[in-house]
């Protein structure tokens, strides 16, 4: 239990530590940031090791009062759902530090301070079990990212940063309204307590209430995910953000949305979630296909990857709103996968940018010749991203689609089109950037990976393979948590299952059997 608190507190301390270092001593700042983030990563691995996957409830729980009235508690803990997301955050922060090593050369101190501070917020989002605390962390993680984009971004950084902030803010204020309303009904912000009130039938919402509350939460999360058509902040934010910003944004921050959907929307508003699942699923599918199509025609690498995120995250949302164990497991797994593979893509694009100072695909071509290792790493990441078996994304996508198929086969059919398209845009990108004769300016500027860069990318590549093959490392804990969430959503909503069931009777059969 102290381990988890340490994970939360250490980055905050690191933030202060970095602030205390004189601003001109870049080396010390970087080293400190790296050390702190690695330390936190180590601690989070400790969490993973000591985590009991068989136990479905929260572990490493700390629950102390923070504010007496209204009763707000510092209540943190993790279950299988949050465990790996925490590890993901702690893993990608050192990666973010490493990729910024040369990239960030001005206002270094502020950069690393914010990066480390953000880690605290991100971890907090995933471990908070008090709705209010959750909201606080949710917002806290927003500010550093805003600055990362706005200060260290590219030309249109300000537009992107403000857009990012306002989109997210617009969603989260509605969530705040819903959270407060929930409090006025439940008289507590404590999430497990609210759930047990609901389970005991002492807290009920009228359909209208539930729908409105659901929408309040959902919009905040959907913007963060981002779900079509609320996604337009993402490409801008990604394109303008510095590498580390993009990495953290794509890998961890977007997961805040899907995590929220799964953690809060489903158990709190089971009926509304199920009732609205059809159109949400449709939006998710539209996002999958649409994101892929738009990604295909992007001339800018980061934008391409950003739109691919829209597509990938569509799978996650689809899985969540399939309300099947497979779909949920797949969705969570896909969150992690997307974190790893898209994170790696941004890392690699960042490497390219550091060499050639351009994000336009047209400025590259033939990179494989001067930088074979970079090309190989990019290839593996590309393959992971397009869902090649034995690499990570495949497992997630498979589970999601399999889960969806149990509910509505038509959804699966359309969603699976996204997998075809993902191959189109990624391979086309790869071809344009890496194949062909190397142009003189590419030859002149592009060199192969150096050890620091290897250190940043190799763990991710190893994880891609690991997660694609040894899924048992991760899935049991995730599954236990999802089983519980699913159970929570099944209270008194039996009849919806039938309504959602597909046209063919057989799958309803299967569903009932489960």
């Amino acid at each position, binding site marked *: 239990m102290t381990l988890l608190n340490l994970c939360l507190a250490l980055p905050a301390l690191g933030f202060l530590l970095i602030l205390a270092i004189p601003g001109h001593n870049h080396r010390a700042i970087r080293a400190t940031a790296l050390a702190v983030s690695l330390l936190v990563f180590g601690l989070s691995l400790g969490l993973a090791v000591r985590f009991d996957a068989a136990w479905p409830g929260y572990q490493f729980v700390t629950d102390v009062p923070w504010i007496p009235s209204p009763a707000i508690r510092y209540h943190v803990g993790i279950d299988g759902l949050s465990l790996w997301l925490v590890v993901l955050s702690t893993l990608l922060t050192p990666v973010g530090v490493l990729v910024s090593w040369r990239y960030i050369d001005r206002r270094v101190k502020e950069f690393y301070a914010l990066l480390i501070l953000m880690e605290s917020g991100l971890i907090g989002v995933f471990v908070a079990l008090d709705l209010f605390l959750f909201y606080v962390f949710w917002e806290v993680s927003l500010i550093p990212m805003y600055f990362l984009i706005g200060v260290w971004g590219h030309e249109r950084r300000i537009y992107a940063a403000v857009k990012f902030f306002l989109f997210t803010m617009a969603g989260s204020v509605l969530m705040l309204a819903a959270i407060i309303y929930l409090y006025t009904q439940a008289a507590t912000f404590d999430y497990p307590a609210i759930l047990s009130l609901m389970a005991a039938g002492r807290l009920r919402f009228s359909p209208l209430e539930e729908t409105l509350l659901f929408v309040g939460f959902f919009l905040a999360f959907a913007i963060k995910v981002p779900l079509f058509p609320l996604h337009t902040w993402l490409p801008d934010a990604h394109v303008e953000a510095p590498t580390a910003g993009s990495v953290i944004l794509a890998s961890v921050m977007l997961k805040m949305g899907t995590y929220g959907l799964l953690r809060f929307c489903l158990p709190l508003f089971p009926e509304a979630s199920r009732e609205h699942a059809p159109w949400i699923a449709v939006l998710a599918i539209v996002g999958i296909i649409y994101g892929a199509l*738009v990604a295909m*025609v992007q001339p800018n690498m980061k934008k391409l990857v950003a739109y691919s995120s829209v597509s990938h995250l569509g799978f996650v949302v689809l899985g969540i709103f399939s309300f099947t164990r497979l779909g949920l497991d*797949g969705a969570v797994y896909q969150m992690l996968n997307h974190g790893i593979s898209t994170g790696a893509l941004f890392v690699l694009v960042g490497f390219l940018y550091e060499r050639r100072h351009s994000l336009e695909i047209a400025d590259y071509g033939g990179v494989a010749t001067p930088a074979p290792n970079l090309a190989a790493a990019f290839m593996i990441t590309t393959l992971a991203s397009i869902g090649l078996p034995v690499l990570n994304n495949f497992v997630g996508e498979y589970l999601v689609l399999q889960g969806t198929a149990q509910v509505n086969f038509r959804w699966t*059919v359309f969603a699976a089109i996204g997998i075809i398209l993902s191959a189109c845009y990624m391979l086309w990108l790869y071809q344009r950037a890496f*194949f062909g004769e190397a142009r003189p300016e590419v030859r002149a500027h592009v060199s192969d990976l150096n050890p620091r860069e290897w250190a940043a990318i190799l763990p991710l590549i190893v994880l891609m393979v690991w997660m694609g093959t040894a899924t048992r490392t991760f899935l049991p804990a995730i599954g236990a948590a999802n089983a519980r969430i699913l159970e929570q959503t099944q209270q008194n909503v039996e009849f919806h299952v039938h309504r959602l069931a597909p046209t*063919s009777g*057989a799958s309803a059969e299967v569903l009932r*059997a489960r």
Partner: protein
Amino acid sequence: MLHLWLIPAFPLAGFLVNGLLGRRASKAFVNAVGVGSVVLSFLWVLKTLAALGPLETPHVERYFTWIESGDLRIGFDLVADRLSAVMMLVVTGVGLLIHVYSIGYMAHEGGYYRFFAYLNLFMFFMLVLVMAANFLLLFVGWEGVGLCSYLLIGFWFLKKSAADAGKKAFIVNRIGDFGFSLAIYLVVVHFGTLDFDAVFSAVASRPVDSGAGLLAVIGLLLLVGATGKSAQVPLYVWLPDAMEGPTPVSALIHAATMVTAGVYMTARCAPIYLHAPLAMEAVAWVGAITAFFAATIGLAQHDIKKVFAYSTISQLGYMFLGAGAGAFSAGIYHLVTHAFFKALLFLGAGSVIHALGGEQDLRKMGGLRKHTPVTFWTLLCAAVAIAGVPPFSGFHSKDAILLAAHHHSPVLYWIGVITAALTAFYVFRAIFLAFFGDYRGDPHHHPHESPPVMTVPLALLALLSLAGGYFPVPAWLAPMFPASEQGHDVLLVAISVVAGLAGIAAAWWFYVARPGLADRVAARLGVFYRLVYNKYFVDEIYAAAVVRPVVEGSDRLAWRGMDVGVIDGMVNGVAARAQRAGAVLRQIQSGNVRSYAAWVLFGAVLVIVAFGFWGGWQ
């Protein structure tokens, strides 16, 4: 435990070693690892099969749980049964020969280690494909070989056409995989498992699907997958382009092994197809149409590899025809013999190309009989085998298929026969153009025979092409599939043989006896010839009907229209509207005290009205 896993593991190890260390290693090391791993694998196959004996029941080995979620458990399970045994032998056997051949063929190429690493990786995935004991693992191999195909087609990635071709192969395959994966989802939804034995026994207990029932849907979706991987209509377009890859790759992947995965899968899923006549029918017709259609295109190609590529498509169509007609064992039989003679054709072609320093155009060859005798004779063996000349291997397998087809539907039989004639014609056309007449190529180039490391595999394959028909494949496979009663109708056999011989004769007439006649005929045929010559413009049609609309639509409608225009337009519109509202509101603040006072007065009246007349009256 017989450690079946070692069979794919050897090539995987080879891939890892060569991939990680190969760049700095010597060629000898790379060869040793690359070929050695396949040798080990081949030996392990032999040892395993020897240990397993007659394989009355499948031998399944379960290693670890790959994915487990809820009630669904998918293991990393390998199976050795009669079907996979055949495939293992073909894959490792032919694969080994091609590996050896590659040592010679690729000797002067850059990225040598990369080539062998990819080949090894391919072997790994192909073996996983054929040994998988469940659908998902099969899919792993399926996608994996697709990847290797992509990598190897694009091996010379400096060439745009090669990179394009690789990408095209991958994407078209993805479309097929789309169907395959949907089938997998349906299987899980309805059977709750992906293990072959469990699924098939569940299928067996179901009544035969009369119409478009569940099994028919699954069967059709699987067929979509198969058409992608095995280059059938309408997804065959990638295979001709795939000839951009090095020739050993064409031989191994795009002739002998990978492209037959669809046939293998169809045979593997025979229990499903047998319960879904509709799907069966579709398989047969897709096969027949592809066989004929591709053969016609093959008639007019000038690139030697393209000729063989269309031939491959056509022959794969044969296999599907067989499978669709219910003769799964015949399909597999043809798969095996085809592996021999088509690999040989490609390797021979490779040898020719090697001899000519990279020239692939038949019009610039000729008279090579004298320069490359070994190649000539081995190629001739392959040609007679594919032409169905008795008693060589192609004759046996093709006949089995045609008989089954006739049994199923005479129309299919006749298509098969015509295709057989066309096949004989274009193959011998290629042979005659390349080896007879006078050398028409660059006069400064002196063609030379390939080194033994290439010719020995050729010879071995020639032997197999000639005698391969005597492997008792159908009998061996018989217990796997319900016996399809096929009376041995001599007349039907005779007709097909005659057709084949007629094709050879026609080719001799056109290209040896009366050179120049072909061009005149072509000119006479006009539109039809141009249609065939341009491959029926299928690529162009696809480009115009699918690719361009999608790309343009994504660009204009989705991105610039929807994203930038509508959504961001709305967002920016709201922002702009807010700004404008702010700009209007600030006008109230005119700076004039008297107007401020008017506003205050206005406010006071408003409040009075609100408090006095509005608030409390309810």
